[in-house]
């Protein structure tokens, strides 16, 4: 059973003041995420990533289509015991301390006796143990992001949704968030995160999907997505027409001809590997193609 399932999920917003016209933000999204996957939801700003997450969190309602999480419709708030959510650029009550705010969230799950210990444990887990009594309005952006992660996992959810969890963080902060996502996977949780930071997706994700202009462009493992996009073959060889090591790139169908030419020239083949686009190149290609159409 898919942990997250979206079927023809579509969202239109009304735009304009006097004569409101519908503007499609998400167009017939079909998506399945399996248990214990780290699933990357990629796309440029305005692609529809946050709209999708809001639909899954039941913060907005679909124009058509449906979505389920753990087999329950997203409108079923009882299912929220099993999920955690970190919104993009999270906001919290300014005048509460980190300890008070996290305690508030913990209360919503009915924790009683072990609540204080749980709050302490999760603040320490995200590196905010010493900031427990500091008001949230005094937190830096990175600290707020880490606090946001703590509130998303305070109840040990089975599925964690993260909207741009590493955006706006310094390299150390990004590393910490990445480590936390990997920890969540080790613990057997499913992680669904949106990002436009491609190296994060390459590092963390079992599978990714690419969204552009509200439409799903592709979905699969990072490797699978590029399997059909081999740009050519790179051959590294030694000797031949001049001494030393050389590199050449040929088309997939030209490999054997190239081998033959090199053999005749007396070169020694050192290595031969497929040339595939980086995730960034693939991403840009899809986005620009969709933009043109």
């Amino acid at each position, binding site marked *: 059973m898919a942990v997250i399932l979206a079927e023809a999920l579509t969202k239109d*917003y009304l735009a304009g003041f006097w004569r409101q016209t519908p503007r499609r933000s998400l167009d017939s999204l079909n998506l399945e995420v399996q248990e214990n996957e780290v699933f990357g939801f990629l796309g440029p700003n305005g692609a529809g990533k946050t709209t999708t997450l*809001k639909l899954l*969190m*039941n*913060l*907005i*309602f679909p124009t058509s289509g449906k979505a389920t999480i753990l087999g329950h419709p997203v409108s079923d*708030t*009882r299912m*929220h*015991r099993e*999920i*955690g*959510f*970190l*919104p993009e*650029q*999270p*906001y*919290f*009550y300014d*005048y*509460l301390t980190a300890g*008070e705010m996290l305690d*508030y*969230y913990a*209360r*919503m*799950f009915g924790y009683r006796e072990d609540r204080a210990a749980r709050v302490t444990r999760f603040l320490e887990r995200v590196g905010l143990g010493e900031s427990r009594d500091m008001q949230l309005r005094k937190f830096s952006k990175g600290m707020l992001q880490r606090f*946001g992660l703590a*509130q*998303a996992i305070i109840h040990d959810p089975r599925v964690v*949704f993260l909207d741009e969890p590493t955006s706006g963080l310094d390299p150390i902060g990004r590393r910490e968030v990445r480590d936390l996502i990997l920890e969540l996977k080790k613990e057997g949780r499913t992680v669904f995160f949106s990002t436009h930071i491609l190296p994060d997706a390459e590092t963390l994700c079992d599978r990714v999907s690419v969204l552009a202009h509200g439409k799903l462009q592709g979905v699969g493992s990072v490797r699978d997505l590029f399997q059909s996009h081999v740009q050519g073959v790179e051959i590294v060889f030694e000797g031949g027409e001049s001494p030393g090591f050389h590199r050449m790139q040929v088309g997939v169908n030209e490999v054997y001809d190239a081998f033959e030419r090199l053999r005749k020239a007396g070169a020694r083949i050192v290595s031969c590997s497929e040339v595939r686009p980086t995730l960034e190149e693939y991403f840009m290609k899809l986005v620009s193609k969709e933009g043109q159409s």
Partner: protein
Amino acid sequence: MIAVIAWNTFREAVRDRILFNLVFFALLMISAAVLVGQISIGIEHLIIVNLGLTAISLFGVAMAVILGVALIYKEIERRTLYTLLSKPVRRWQFIAGKYCGLCLTLTVNTLFMTAGLILALFYVDQGLRPSDLQVLVGVFFILLQLFLLTGIALLFSCFATPAVATLGTLGLYMVGVFSEDIRTFGEISKDPMMQRLTSGLYYLLPNFGAFNVISAVAHEHPIPGALIAGNITYVVLYVAIALIASAAIFSNRDLK
């Protein structure tokens, strides 16, 4: 769940300094009543009760409107709702929790101001009179009025910006204060159409005039039990309708 949200709303409001400022000004006004009372020979008690209850009512209304109109709007605008509603919280529970939290805040502030008024009476009369119990009934009526006003402000907050919600809430409050006059105007009129219209408006609009017993309390007149029971029932029903409408609007609203 409602209690958890209510307690947090109260805690957040208490940390917001604007409330302290309002309570401070209200206590200042009550202190001024003592001064005015001292130069009003023979009617010090009446003046202090009158000015004191008026100050509590005015500042209570200001607090209810300022906090109430932004109650839901602020949560949507600042996106604090996103993390809350991803927890096992239903939207109607959120509405009910926010309402109860604001009512708790208003009650605590009103009790602070009431303590100031009682101290002022104690200072002027060198003790308390049995009729001062009526002051507490007056305060209770002010609280009922604030609970009703908060319900209306919350309803506006579910779909309007704070500016529009402030205009709407204050407009309804002002009209509600004079709703008796609207009905009387209809009765004076000979036009049956006008009579039906004013009568309809009287029953539809919140009747804030029914909570104004400040003059009776100041003159130490007893407040009839039937009026107390009637006002309690009225507020419970009116607030229930306002909260159900708020929950219905909010439950179907996209949180962009």
